[in-house]
């Protein structure tokens, strides 16, 4: 029960903050509400038992990536005229709400019957898949999976980050 209450709290926070990202005219408000959205999302990750990923979400997304966004927004220093866009009209808002609602209803109706209801039947006994295994989602278990089962993608990711750093410097610097 407590999980359900917390879930709805976090879910409303995620959706409201995510909507702010799109609807705010000034990108700095969008960036700050995106930080809030990531914090609520990490709460949801904790509800899912993914403790390591929740910490990474705050450290990497809210900490590093969003600082980069805010820094670039500050660097561009957009004037009021360059923001340029008209505010969202009532009709646009209504249309968007209708689309989001339709996607939600379709997802609910499509996923509802297709997915087993928390308790699965396996042979003769009922297996409750809502029960967490000890250590699920912790640094040790996820680290074992990362380093044993997917060591090659892990190393390739480090190469990707190196290439991205070099590319970002080359593209943004202009003349080296």
């Amino acid at each position, binding site marked *: 029960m407590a999980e359900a209450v917390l879930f709805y709290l976090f879910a409303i926070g995620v959706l409201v903050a995510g909507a702010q990202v799109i609807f705010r005219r000034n990108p700095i408000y969008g960036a700050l509400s995106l930080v809030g*959205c990531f914090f609520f999302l990490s709460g949801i990750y904790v509800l899912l038992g993914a403790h390591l990923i929740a910490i990474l*979400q705050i450290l990497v997304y809210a900490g590093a990536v969003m600082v980069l966004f805010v820094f670039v927004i500050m660097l561009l220093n957009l004037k009021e005229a360059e923001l340029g866009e008209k505010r969202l009209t009532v009709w646009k808002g209504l249309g968007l709400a209708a689309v989001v609602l339709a996607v939600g209803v379709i*997802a609910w109706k499509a996923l509802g019957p297709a997915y087993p209801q928390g308790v699965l039947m396996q042979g003769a006994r009922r297996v409750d898949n*809502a029960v967490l295994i000890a250590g699920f989602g912790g640094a040790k278990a996820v680290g074992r999976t*990362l380093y044993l089962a997917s060591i090659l993608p892990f190393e390739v990711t480090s190469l990707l980050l190196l290439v991205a750093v070099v590319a970002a410097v080359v593209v943004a610097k202009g003349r080296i």
Partner: protein
Amino acid sequence: MDFFHAHQAQHYLVLAALLFALGAAGVVLRRNAIIVLMSIELMLNAVNLTFLAFSRFPLVPNSPMGTFLSGHAAVFFVIATAAAEAAVGLAIVLAVFRTRISVNVDEFDTLKL
């Protein structure tokens, strides 16, 4: 009414679908390149949420824990890729802003004939 009370995968999947819809709407509707990049981050997070939901509520419950946690490993890679994507994307926005003094994606049309 069981849907609204029990702690189960559908909640998380529907939330992920809504978040993805928000991000897609942002990419289509907004013209500011930075907000388009932030909407892409929203969509990546929706995908992460789906990975974690399927990892927490697996379809085959009695497999060893490592198979569940491959979802967590996938989320780890997505986070790393998203960080790389943000760095390169923002560098491109900066470079384009330097030549065109604009971040409006509708004005970036030199590839059009």
